[in-house]
């Protein structure tokens, strides 16, 4: 294995990460004092019911949103004080499809690569690579606005993969993808294993089961359980992971509801 940071991803150390939203007199603790440590090259899934705080966690880790308290280090860089460094080694596939609608698939990809620092020729090579990997060949020269929702989604994911980040955040990547596309994406993601640190959120439990090294289950902004699939099953005394998930994720249901 090479010693280059890129070749094995970067580690993530989260300490007391908290996000409190205040709007119209109401306060919502979206993420509550989260402690977590993810190793370099680890494939980590963050699960939880709607509103558990997964996206908020990813937004803070990707320096989009400023934590109310606590912090995190990614590849040794502090997300609060060294955001510029962090941004250079991460990329995010946001929960919502994020593409430039008036650009073609290829233009979207090359632009993304360039904005993350690739020279023109490298950007083109990288675009060829992800176009092949995600089967975007037929649509490469179509404007993004003319693609179906699922194909826009693939492009959005491709734009996260193209920069070869050390840490890749995938927020519900397979949302809206057909079965074939989902399988293809799994294959692509599988190839990243060990090379890139991946934080995945998903509501498809079989996806998390098949891909993750470890899984964290969040509820009401807190991490309720952490471990491998078999550890989580053992913890709850369930055979199927889905049952274990339901037990953990609903254990606190109603606790922080308003």
């Amino acid at each position: 294995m090479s010693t280059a940071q890129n070749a094995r991803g970067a580690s993530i150390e989260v300490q007391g990460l908290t996000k409190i939203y205040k709007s119209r007199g109401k306060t919502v603790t979206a993420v509550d004092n989260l402690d977590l440590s993810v190793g370099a090259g680890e494939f980590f899934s963050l699960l939880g019911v709607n509103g558990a705080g997964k996206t908020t966690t990813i937004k803070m880790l990707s320096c989009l949103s400023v934590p109310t308290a606590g912090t995190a280090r990614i590849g040794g860089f502090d997300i609060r004080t060294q955001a510029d460094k962090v941004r250079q080694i991460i990329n995010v596939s946001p929960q919502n499809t994020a593409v430039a609608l008036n650009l073609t698939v290829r233009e979207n990809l090359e632009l993304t690569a360039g904005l993350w620092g690739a020279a023109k020729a490298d950007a083109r090579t990288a675009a060829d690579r992800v176009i092949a990997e995600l089967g975007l060949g037929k649509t490469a020269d179509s404007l993004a606005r003319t693609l179906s929702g699922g194909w826009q989604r693939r492009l959005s994911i491709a734009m996260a993969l193209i920069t070869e980040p050390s840490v890749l955040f995938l927020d519900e990547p397979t949302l809206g993808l057909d079965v074939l596309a989902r399988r293809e994406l799994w294959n692509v993601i599988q190839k990243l294993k060990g090379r890139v640190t991946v934080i995945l959120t998903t509501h498809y439990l079989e996806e998390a089961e098949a891909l993750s090294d470890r899984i964290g289950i969040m509820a009401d902004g807190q991490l309720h359980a952490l471990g491998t699939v078999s550890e989580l099953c053992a913890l709850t005394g369930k055979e199927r992971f889905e049952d274990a998930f339901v037990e953990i994720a609903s254990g606190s249901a109603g606790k922080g509801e308003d």
Partner: protein
Amino acid sequence: MAATSKRSNRMLLFAGRVLKEILRDPLSFIFCLGVPLVLLLAMYFLFSPTAPWFELEFLTPGIAVFSGTFTMLYMTLLVSRDRSTWFLMRLYTSPMKDADFVLGYALSGVLVGMCQVLICWLTAVVVGLCAGNTGWISWRILPAALCILPMIAGFVAVGILFGSLFSDKAAPGLSSIVISGAGFLSGAWMPIETLSEGFQSFCAALPFYPAVQCGRCLLVGKNILGEPMGMDVFRRHFVVTVIYAVVLTVCAVLAFKLKARREAD
């Protein structure tokens, strides 16, 4: 050094993307080309027999400045719409700086605005040749056309400012206030020189009228009443437009930094 070259690279890439968006949107052609050309032709043919300030040598610098307000409106729409998309949100996770965003928008906006200005002048020349009104046509057109660059930069900055602060519902309304204001207070088709002294000073303190006078000054060296305007008059007016351009650009960067970028929170 490496850092600066990377940085300008990001800014140019983003500007290229904005330019593509503009060129692929039919609305931009209507706003940025259609409106000013129609105004120039209509005003010249309808009103030039009635008053001297509708002659091409006075009208064209005015319409060129007024056209810039449509670049402003277009930039307002572009930035406010961008803000509501996840694409811009995604770029916030990239190593781009706030200045890369604003200068990228500004560069493409100024390019479009200056193309519009040049097309405006080209049309005027063609009309002048066809109508046999050629006395004003000379090399002086070039400096007269280019000297409104600071005004165009100012309009683009206001577009980015409004686009960063307001939604794509509210921003066009505000822009149209500036458009009507600029229409009257620029003296593009209103004879400011014949109005009260107080009103003249008021117009001279805003950037619109000075920008128009700069063009007239460099083209024919006199105002609509036929009074000569020398380089001292040009300098006085030009400085005003430059100051506005700088101040408005700073405001645009601040608005983007403090409002647009914080929306991702």
